[in-house]
């Protein structure tokens, strides 16, 4: 088990003197910081015996798994099996749901996220989240990214502008919107809105990205663009993605976790390399699901 003594310090993304600025495709994703390639898996998020209840109803029971640094981990399974609940437990967004109780441990780089001393705002800053429906705020495109940056202390105008340009380039939106940054984000198309939301999350320079079916609300072309973008983020961020699109999971994920409802609660049935889950699943439920026989 790999434990880093100190988590990577989080600083606002810097675009100005970034050596990789002119790198491949003109994207400026910044230096690789999330970790080694997936052939050398290091657990970043360690989940031990994690359970989650909404009131008396159990949504997740005894989930244990490691999520590897810099890799894309897909959570697959039928609706209602607790994938989204699991995802929003990682940044403690479940705290906002009245009556939601958790037990077990989720550790990020060895420290428990439920530690009472842990500041939940800092935690969420380090963990970006993208929702199923694009949720740009009804503000200007610029203000959408500026608002969270201000919240986390990036106040200098030049810094903000640099970060905003960088993240918009990273998601391939800069060329499309650079001449109307101050018009409403709601005037963007669905796919653009979703990329704006990804840019907004990247602006805080997170280490982990949680994505809850980020493509399912988009048309096929926009979905393809966002999917390519997610693939490009591999290695730089640890990505956990919920998807119902098995073909997509197969295309982009390094690891896959298969959830299924058993005994009224969502459980992790199988976890492994994406290829193994799809081609030689160990569990018969997994086989039935990935072959389309169940679920």
């Amino acid at each position, binding site marked *: 088990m790999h434990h880093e003594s100190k988590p990577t310090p989080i600083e606002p993304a810097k675009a100005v003197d970034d050596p990789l600025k002119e790198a491949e495709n003109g994207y400026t994703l910044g230096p690789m910081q999330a970790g080694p390639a997936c052939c050398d898996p290091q657990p970043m998020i360690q989940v031990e015996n994690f359970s989650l209840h909404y009131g008396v109803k159990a949504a997740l029971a005894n989930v244990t798994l490691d999520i590897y640094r810099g890799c894309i981990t897909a959570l697959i399974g039928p609706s209602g099996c607790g994938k989204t609940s699991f995802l929003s437990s990682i*940044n403690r*967004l479940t705290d*906002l749901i*009245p009556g939601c109780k958790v037990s077990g441990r989720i550790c990020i780089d060895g420290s428990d996220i439920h530690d009472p001393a842990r500041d939940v*705002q*800092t*935690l*969420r*800053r380090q*963990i*970006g*989240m993208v*929702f199923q*429906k*694009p*949720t*740009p*705020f*009804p*503000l200007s495109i610029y203000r959408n990214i500026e*608002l*969270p940056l*201000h*919240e*986390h202390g990036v106040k200098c105008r030049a810094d903000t502008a640099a970060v905003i340009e960088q993240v918009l380039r990273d998601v391939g939106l800069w060329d*499309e919107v650079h001449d109307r940054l101050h018009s409403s984000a*709601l*005037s*963007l*198309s*669905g*796919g*653009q*809105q979703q990329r704006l*939301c990804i840019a*907004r*999350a990247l602006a*805080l320079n997170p280490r982990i990205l949680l994505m809850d079916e980020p493509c399912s*609300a*988009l*048309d096929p*072309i*926009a979905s393809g*663009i966002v999917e390519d973008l997610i693939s490009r983020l591999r290695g730089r961020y640890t990505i956990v993605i919920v998807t119902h699109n098995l073909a997509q999971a197969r295309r982009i994920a390094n690891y896959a976790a298969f959830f299924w409802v058993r005994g009224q609660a969502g459980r992790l049935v199988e976890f492994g390399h994406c290829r193994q889950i799809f081609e030689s699943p160990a569990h018969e439920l997994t086989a039935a699901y990935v072959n389309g026989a169940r679920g």
Partner: protein
Amino acid sequence: MTEMGSTKSVRSHRDCFAQLAIYCAALLVCAAFAWILSDIARGGMAHLSLDFIIDSPREAGRAGGIGPILISSALVLAIALIAALPLGWTTAAVLAEYVSADSAFGGAIRYSLQVLAAVPSIVFGLFGNAFFSIYLGMGFSILSGGLTLACMLLPILVSTAESGLRAIPDAYRLSAAALGMSRTSTLFRLLLPIAAPSLAAGLLLGIGRAIAETAALLFTSGYVDRTPGSLLDSGRTLAVHIFDLSMNVPGGDAAAYASALVLITALLLINMIAMRLAAGWRRRKIMSQNSNGYSDTDAPRV
């Protein structure tokens, strides 16, 4: 055959009658409004002039103008808003953002506000007189009138602001939380700006209610028609002036009509602005719902 024909004709007669009744009712409402408006305009136009708006009243208001009365009205309104806005909007924010919709605390606040909204204004006047004028020693003053009005405005301000905040989709709150924004800054930097049009609409409705108020001010801000020297002076508002001219001053009808015309014009203007803001707010709401409904109705641009 004949039987069927007769039921049919009875039915169609009944239908006709119902339609007629409905149209009559609607027409009656319009007619009442038009009648009041034309009566006031006819009676007031002749007396209305720039001098009337600037001058002080003379001979108990029969002659002269309404200058000091407009000043008193504005002061009473300002006091009412300064007192009621922070209190009302804070309460709305608590109700919409910090208290769950079905909690006992929220229910108690909402119930109190409903009762407050239903209290007749004369009762507010008596309360204001007993509490602000006598118990707190403010006497008949602009201050006690304004504070009494503030109590009346609270239900309007709270309910409009609360519904404005509740209309904001939860997705924004979740996104803000996921970006590590605190609840306070989410409220001030995101939710209140989004709800701004409904706050403005509530504000204008409140202003409309306040400048039309008479009964609550009779016993609190009083009758004195001089320009108030301080907030502790008594001052006569426009609505009180009209009441006084028409009830207590023989020969004051022309001035009463002209004052009423000024009041009605102000009210109409405020109502128009409020309507426009409310419509804009609704449009915005629909827009944001569309964007959350991920439809590209306004021209896809990928």
